[in-house]
């Protein structure tokens, strides 16, 4: 568990390419996420598609200028930065008729095909993707046994996981 101290420091900001949706982001992104939530109704999707700027200005006047722009430009990482949460922003992608992997490709700066191929190859490796600061770059998890050999390893069978 994080301690009070590390909580204030947000230890999870060390994870690269990751926007942990905490209370600060949730507060910042409230109207952005509520806008996305509004797209769960067919009539709202229709109204949004008919005139995106008008829909935003009329129904979500409390969006910041940055949020409004990120929505209109479909800047999915920027939306996360500005307090969006992926479960919400995914509804915008769905409204556009995109499969989720399109959004993933946008967020990872890749093509959809390359992203799909990456997943088929077993996904993005965790090695090299643990830590911005490098502090945890080499550390594996406390539960992964082959990174911390124990007596039980003498069972003969090498543990894969």
């Amino acid at each position: 568990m994080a301690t009070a101290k590390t909580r204030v420091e947000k230890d999870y900001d060390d994870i690269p390419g990751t926007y942990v949706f905490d209370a600060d982001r949730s507060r910042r992104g409230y109207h952005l996420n509520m806008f996305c939530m509004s797209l769960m109704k067919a009539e709202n999707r229709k109204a949004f598609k008919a005139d995106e700027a008008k829909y935003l200005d009329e129904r979500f006047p409390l969006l910041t200028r940055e949020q409004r722009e990120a929505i209109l430009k479909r800047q999915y990482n920027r939306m996360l930065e500005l307090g969006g949460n992926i479960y919400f922003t995914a509804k915008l992608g769905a409204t556009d008729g995109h499969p989720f992997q399109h959004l993933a490709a946008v967020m990872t700066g890749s093509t959809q095909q390359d992203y799909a191929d990456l997943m088929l190859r077993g996904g993005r490796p965790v090695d090299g993707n643990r830590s911005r600061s490098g502090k945890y770059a080499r550390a594996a998890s406390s539960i992964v046994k082959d990174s911390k050999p124990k007596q039980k390893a003498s069972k003969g069978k090498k543990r894969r996981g």
Partner: protein
Amino acid sequence: MARIIAGVTSSHVPAIGAAIDNHRTNEPYWQRVFEGFERSKEWIAKAKPDVVIGVYNDHASAFSVEVIPTFALGTAAEFPPADEGWGPRPVPVVQGHPELASHIAQSVILDEFDLTLCNKMEVDHGLTVPLNLMFGTPKEWPCPVIPLAVNVVQYPPPTGHRCFMLGKAIRKAVESYPEDLKVVIFGTGGMSHQISGQRAGLINSKFDHAFLDNLTKDPKKLTKLSHLELMREAGAEGVEMVMWLIMRGALDDKVDEVYRFYTVPASNTAVGHIILENKIKGGKKTSAKPASTKSASRGKKSAPKMKRAAARQKIERVRS
């Protein structure tokens, strides 16, 4: 007396639901996933639970950012599928078990868990995909389901330790329910995946296998994982694996792992699935072993074996 006979974990990837709803389960990509649950369907047909407790998380369907319950227990008579953006999934309405759910609520609140009770709630793919994986696509779900929605959307989710302890409290509640009921508890979500940001696509199979191993043998070790470690190793959205610990806490300390399946990927996610049975009680086995017969092999890929070594071999094959 009601009792929990077994626990099941399963990923609840929305794309699996889409594959089912769009009749694409026979495509090789999806076959690989669904085959992993063939034996499980046989197992649960034999185990015949009277009630399922389904631990899952809502994905901005029933709950937005207006009200965020840490633990929301469904005490309603029924739970319609949510409209997640394309109309509700064409799956049966989930029938609840209001009496048992209320009994659990009362017991668990007096045991100092701070539930939110929902007498009206829609349920999304987080709950319905695992029901499909285990029960297929029947006209009606074969038994009532009590949904338990856990916040894993806004940080912080409940700690793994808290989840584990809630599982214990649920078990105690079930065992004080006077009616004879066989209960199976599902923990859903995971395994490693990240679907947001530049790190999207992260998969960590080493971690996943270690998690599965410990889930069976040493779950207390998993209760010590910080959210930070879970997110770093298993992805920002992989943190939903804390929910599996509710399932595990509701079981005996020592359990029989009767089945395991793991494959990468389903859409953006590592799929993990395990079936754990409580050990023999009062002289009789609490539930059925999966049938070792019938399950046909299709094409190149054999149906997954019950033995872990074999299951792993399969995984090897699937991923290569």
